[in-house]
């Protein structure tokens, strides 16, 4: 971790926040306070966030503003979470989504 993060920016300062522990497909990972789920995954070198339900092609980090659906993942058992805009929280269980998902109570 660290080598994919911007540490030196001509205009913006990136304060290194507190370490946040979470898991991705069962693997323990670390993010930083202020990360979205997808930014933490990206910093950990995870480029494939899921697979398209029909074509099964890999989906990655794309629009980064919650519009494009490329980053939909299962978070704490909830499917179709837009991980590019969802803040990372301690203990989150993040999984790749392989199908269209279902609402929480189904």
């Amino acid at each position, binding site marked *: 971790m660290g080598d994919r993060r911007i540490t030196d920016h001509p205009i913006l300062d990136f304060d290194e926040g507190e370490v946040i522990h979470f898991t991705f497909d069962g693997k323990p990972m670390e993010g930083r306070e202020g990360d979205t789920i997808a930014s933490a995954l990206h910093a950990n070198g995870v480029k494939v966030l899921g697979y398209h*339900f029909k074509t099964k092609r890999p989906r990655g980090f794309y629009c980064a503003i919650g519009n494009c*659906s490329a980053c939909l993942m299962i978070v704490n058992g*909830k499917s*179709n979470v837009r991980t590019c805009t969802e803040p990372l929280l301690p203990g989150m269980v993040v999984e790749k989504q392989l*199908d*269209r*998902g*279902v*609402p*929480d*109570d*189904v």
Partner: protein
Amino acid sequence: MSVPKSASIVIIGGGVSGCAIAWNLANRGIKDIVLLEKDTLANGSTGRCGAGIRMQWAAEKNCRLAQYSVNFFENGNEILGYERDIEFEQSGYLIVAANEKEAEQFKKNVKLQNSLGIPSVYLTPEEAREIVPLIDTSQFVAATFCQKDGHLNPFHTTDAYAKAAERLGVKIFKHTEVIGIEVKNRRIESVETTRGRIATNIVVNAAGGWSKAIGAMTGVDIPTYVQRHQIMVTEPLEPILNPMVMGFSYNIYIQQVPHGSIIMGRSDNTEPLDFRTTSGWKFVEEMTKTCSKLLPALKTANVLRQWAGHYCMTEDAQPIYGPTPGVEGMYLACGFSGHGFMLAPATAQLVSEMILGEPLTIDVSNLDVGRFERRELVFEHSVV
């Protein structure tokens, strides 16, 4: 491309009704039929509809019209020789009764439907939940279900009719607007379009929301009006809702389409009575409330988008079929009030029979335009 100088019949409107009528007439051997559409095929109510097909009606006439149409759609690909698929999925309609009064009516409806051979059944809420596990049984007192109801692809169906009609010689002109109709001695003489004049003695007004404007060109007031209806769509989900779920007093229809999206719509009498196809927040708020009450699990599904189209309404929410008094040669097939798509095969059959002076497969003589002046309205309450 200019239009032909003359035609045996000019059909105005490239929705499913106009295309189906064109095919039906051509299939009987009628030559020189021209269909005019001011935009693209299925651009009006057809292409914006909820795509549901049902036989569960309260009025016998509607049951018969729908039954005729379902029988057609079951064999639609073969009859029309369609190389693609009209996608008729008979996944059923579950209609819920919100109160005892509605449940009593539903018992009568099922009795009538069964007497006509429509295989609907009356269910308790628990039996309904076996068909739709997501439904909250405390929200309704009874339900009816018909497995032979379902949904159909409006674009493919219109395309299937149009292609079959063209193979039989029908000339379809898109982006061709009717700008005038010449009437001489109370008889149609010609139709003026943006691509030239067509001499003809027979015109079919299947213009949906624009049927009133077409009627006005002949000096006749067709008592139809447009009303905006909105639909919204969720993100695609795994298959969780098999049949269409519908409620009249709940004012909802909701269905998961094969792609996985769940589409839902309702009626709202405060909707504008004009050609606006904008979308609004009020609809989303009310729709999501009703949906979450009846199918609570859906409350966390994300809404993806909305769209709007028009119902071509009549005072009694029933179609207008038949000739126009005072204008010989003008036949009406409009005012479908939200169920024109599902009735298209019956519409095509009946309007063709009227034009050719043949006995009617289903007696719809009381659905003539004169019923509004005579005040002999034919109400159907099973509508959303």
